[in-house]
């Protein structure tokens, strides 16, 4: 099954332990860092990243190469690199799996990214539920430092770089990078609209580059094997690299799989995950976490990459595929998701703070037999207005509701007309 595809990030994954430093090095780890520090030009790292068309794996899919190059050459020091290991997007657990497998790949990736912008301080921002990963990271960072791979004068060069692990208090919004920077500075984690951009004035007013765990983990491979190699990993021409897909819900083998971008959804479900659970029928899935819209059976064979999903008016998000079968009530599922967004809204802007509780109330009424036909246009208008919220939280939060009304209006109407949830009867 998955072995048919090249494994990059999870190649040496062990069932119940991490790849140790020596194992990682034996498999060619830290080679990229050594080469960069001794032979390669800093600029070359940036060029390779840009050429590799590596898109951010944290959910937004922003080109990593462009972000790196927005840190101005003459920007002030110290500069910071933040690794976003918050991963609180419902359905997403790929960073957790990865951190429990390859901590050194992340450390090396961070060192490389940091070197390319001459950052001296690295911070891994991690959610409290991942305490075990935080401990692993702290331990392995110590080991790497002992081996001269971190700290002062890395590998005998004149480059210094330190990494610390920052534990979050636990809130979804902390994954949003501007909110995360506030959190890191001991402030309330409300997002902050640019300008200034973090790469210009981030942590403590200094240039800060922030990337997702998986994005950073790709860097050593790109540096080592080149941009073209990375692009060739994907199945579709516009895409580049592999992706950690984490599949959950009504499949036989939920889990995290490294697969080439552009792989068909049907293949993920059938080949990797062993098909639908209990022989049920595929009804829908969220392709990239709670902030994406439902893909229905119409898209069962969609190629899972950033572009294809965009064309389907959806998003690849975090690559967290959450699968529903024909027993699932999509109104109830959407109500559950809306509950999440109502609870986690940071409370900064009005539409999001008040809109989600309002939408939750309307969906709850529909699910529980108090729905009215008039709710549907109300919900649609409100969702449209929630797009005008302050940050990307709310547009993500209404994605499921909007796609519910787009794809499952019949099911919603059945709730309203039947005064209750047809799936509960």
């Amino acid at each position: 099954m998955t072995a048919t595809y090249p494994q990059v990030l999870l190649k040496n994954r062990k069932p119940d332990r991490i790849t140790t430093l020596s194992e990682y090095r034996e498999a060619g780890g830290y080679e990229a860092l050594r080469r960069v520090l001794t032979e390669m030009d800093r600029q070359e790292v940036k060029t390779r990243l840009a050429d590799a068309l590596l898109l951010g794996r944290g959910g937004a899919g922003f080109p990593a190469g462009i972000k790196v190059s927005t840190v101005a050459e003459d920007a002030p020091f110290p500069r910071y690199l933040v690794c976003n290991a918050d991963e609180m997007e419902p359905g997403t657990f790929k960073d957790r799996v990865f951190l429990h497998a390859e901590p050194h790949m992340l450390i090396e990736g961070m060192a490389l990214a940091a070197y390319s912008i001459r950052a001296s301080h690295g911070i891994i921002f991690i959610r409290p539920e991942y305490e075990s990963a935080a401990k692993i990271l702290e331990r392995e960072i110590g080991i790497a430092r002992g081996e001269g791979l971190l700290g002062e004068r890395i590998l005998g060069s004149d480059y210094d770089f330190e990494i610390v692990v920052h534990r979050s208090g636990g809130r979804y919004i902390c994954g949003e990078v501007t909110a995360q920077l506030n959190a890191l500075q001991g402030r309330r984690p409300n997002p902050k609209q640019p300008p200034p951009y973090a790469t210009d004035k981030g942590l403590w007013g200094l240039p800060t580059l922030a990337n997702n765990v998986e994005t950073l983990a790709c860097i050593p491979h790109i540096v080592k094997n080149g941009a073209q190699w990375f692009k060739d990993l994907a199945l579709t021409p516009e895409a580049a690299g592999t992706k950690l897909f984490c599949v959950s819900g009504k499949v036989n083998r939920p889990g995290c799989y490294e697969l080439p971008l552009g792989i068909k959804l049907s293949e993920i479900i059938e080949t990797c995950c062993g098909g639908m659970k209990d022989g049920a029928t595929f009804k829908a899935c969220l392709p990239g976490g709670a902030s994406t819209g439902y893909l229905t059976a119409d898209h069962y064979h969609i190629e899972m990459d950033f572009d294809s999903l965009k064309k389907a008016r959806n998003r690849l998000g975090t690559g967290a595929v959450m699968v529903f079968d024909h027993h699932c009530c999509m109104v109830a599922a959407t109500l559950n998701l809306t509950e999440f967004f109502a609870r986690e809204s940071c409370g900064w802007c009005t539409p999001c703070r008040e809109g989600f509780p309002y939408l939750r109330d309307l969906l709850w009424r529909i699910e529980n037999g108090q729905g009215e036909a008039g709710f549907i246009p109300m919900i649609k208008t409100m969702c449209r207005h929630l797009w005008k919220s302050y940050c990307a939280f709310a547009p993500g939060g209404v994605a499921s509701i909007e796609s519910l009304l787009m794809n499952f209006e019949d099911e919603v109407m059945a709730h309203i007309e039947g005064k209750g949830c047809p799936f509960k009867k």
Partner: protein
Amino acid sequence: MPTLKIDNREINVPAGTKVIEAAERLGIMIPRFCFHPALGSVGACRVCAVAFTEGPVKGIQMSCMIDAQDGMVVSTTDAEAVDFRRHVIEFLMLNHPHDCPVCDEGGHCLLQDLTVAGGHGLRRYRGLKRTHINQDLGPLVQHEMNRCIQCYRCSRYYQEFTGYRDLGVMGIGSRVYFGRSAPGMLESPFAGNLIDICPTGVYTDKPSRYIGRRWDYQRQPSLCIHCSLGCNLTASARYRQVVRHEARPNLEVNGHFICDRGRYGYAYASIADRPRQAMAAGTPGPIVDILAGAREAIQQTVEKHGPGSVAVVVSPRSSLETLAVVKEACGQHGWTGPAAAHTNRQALNRNTAVSCLRPELAVSLAADTEAHDVLVIGADPLNEAPMLALSLRQVQRRGGHVIVIDPRGVQLPFDFDHWAVHPSAMGAILQALIQEIGGHRATAPDTPATFDITKLARRLNASPRPVVVCGTDILTPHEIALAGDLARALRRTHKVAGLFYTLAGANAFAAALLHDQPVSTEAVLDRIEDGGVRLLVAVEQDLWREFPDRKRLQAALKRLDHLVVLDYVDSPLNREAGHFIPTQPLYESGGHWINQEGRLQAASPVMAGGEPIEITGGSDHPPRVFDRRIPGDEPLAAWRAVAALAGEDEADPAPQLKTALADFHPAVNLSTPEATGQRIDLEAIAHDLVESGPAPEPAEDDAPADAVVLLLVDWTFGTEPLSAMAPALTRMEAAPVARLHPDEIARLGLAEGRPVTVSLNGNRLTVPVQADPRMAAGVMAVPRHHLLEWQVFGETRVIVKRSQLKAESE
């Protein structure tokens, strides 16, 4: 200067103007909750959404977050924008109580206005409203969290703008809570502005609760007279009682805010013991008779002892009208005075400051915020002129730097450098600084090495916009003049270099223009003691509360043939006076004041005089007694009373006032209405009034090494005599203490927390000792607190020998 089109009208605005502000210039008021001109934009409430149809920005955007740019075409009436704004308001109303008809904020509530204007009239949401528990935030501000619409103005104002850290936002999502970590008194002396800044009724004015609705009030533009800054405010009265102050925005003076001393200090105007009855030797009588009696007493004294035997003292807080008529009367009749300062030093201090304030140096309170480096000399902003502290905080927020040279343990709500220098060293430091500014190496005065004068001079020289702030309370005239010299020295090399003095009294600037050679009460007492003065007229000058030697005052008054008191506050002197004439506070008289930077400002009368219904009705309403006359309406504007004492019996005093104002001083021109609100003609003030040349050496030079300088100083709450009468503010006061450096406490054999008695010239002052590590060595600071009989030593800056200090056991 970008040009853009808003609702089909073109406008040209300075770069950096937000679209919401550009629209406002066109008279288009785009809805807003989180945006506030003093706090800036954060884009949180989303109610200012408009449509950008052409140009560099497209779609529905928040007009507070977008800089006006060339070629923008903006529609505020776009259907999608309007619908979105309507929804935002609906969202805000989900949890908002439906108590508008009885809510304290109703009628002046931005949320109410926008809900009506935005067209959200019918509730669609069927869920429950979330509710919160309110907190007791102290005597000034009432908290009602259920009304909150989460605009974040309060926490941003409180923390970012004022620099205090005990009010903010807690929780998350739709349950965010604005308040304190635990109930309790708000720490910021600027907390009252929360009331003005909250767009709904979360923070309301506590002392005026349930007194009336704002539209019932008589509201007029007024001024704060509790320090010399002259902050603008709107005063409200109800049933002949002043009930509320609100900040009145004046972007050249106080910006959008006022301090709590100013906001709540008004109670004196309506309290039960305010004297409203004219009296002869303590016996009430009709005011015309009493005035006639006083005039007769004056005539007799003049006949017997000559015109100079009549002396007048007046308050530097009195209106310009009063000062002018007093000045005219003294000039015409040859009376002694008027004295408008207590001691010779204070009189000289004030006049030195005024004469040093050249037009090219004077800066306003608002302009202070634009300074890059501010050197504060001998001033304690938070305690002496609170809004100055807020202004200086904005300097620091904009990346500027504040250095304070002052012996007191000055505290400010931001990071600043403090040189706690002994008062006797201030002059030498200033002199050295001036030399260094001029490029000459100065011999460093005898100060700690941390006070690096060369570095400071370099900093000021390099500053694009330095300002010198100088107090006039604890310093000597010499130092005050040196502060002026310093600003002048900076001005030589700077396009803009400012000078900003604080003075003692809301109209102290005008008081300085009374004479070329200032007269003090101290000097008048000398003349009483030597028999030269036989009759004293005290105009709104409560000598009993304010003169720094009560014993001497009382002895001197006993020597008088006659005392005439005109005042609106209760004082034992009123009953001792041969004739007492009640006067009107500014809420009744109105008038003009000149603030410390020389700005002429007007206060309108807010209400007719008379005893409040609260008092006449015995708190019952409506009153049970009806009369054609308002009870207690006798008080006169002080200038009228003085005119009556000085002029003819039945003469109309209006022409007299007109002449007096016209003759007052060439710098002050009231003949055009435009003059009000502007700085007076500083050029017309004699700048050689007091020369900075060789000045009297500070007395401290002769003091023994183990002496301390006792400074009787101002505190934010509790020392300013009028505001100290406000019950709400007395709860804000700290108890009076003597502050000393801990080492000093040890050196003098005193003990922290235990009282110390200072005995000087047979007078004694006992006050508990408090350690303050920020104090300079050799200095003791005691507030002129109304709970303390501090009026003992004749001066507010005196030398105390060690032998004159005694530690009390309890």
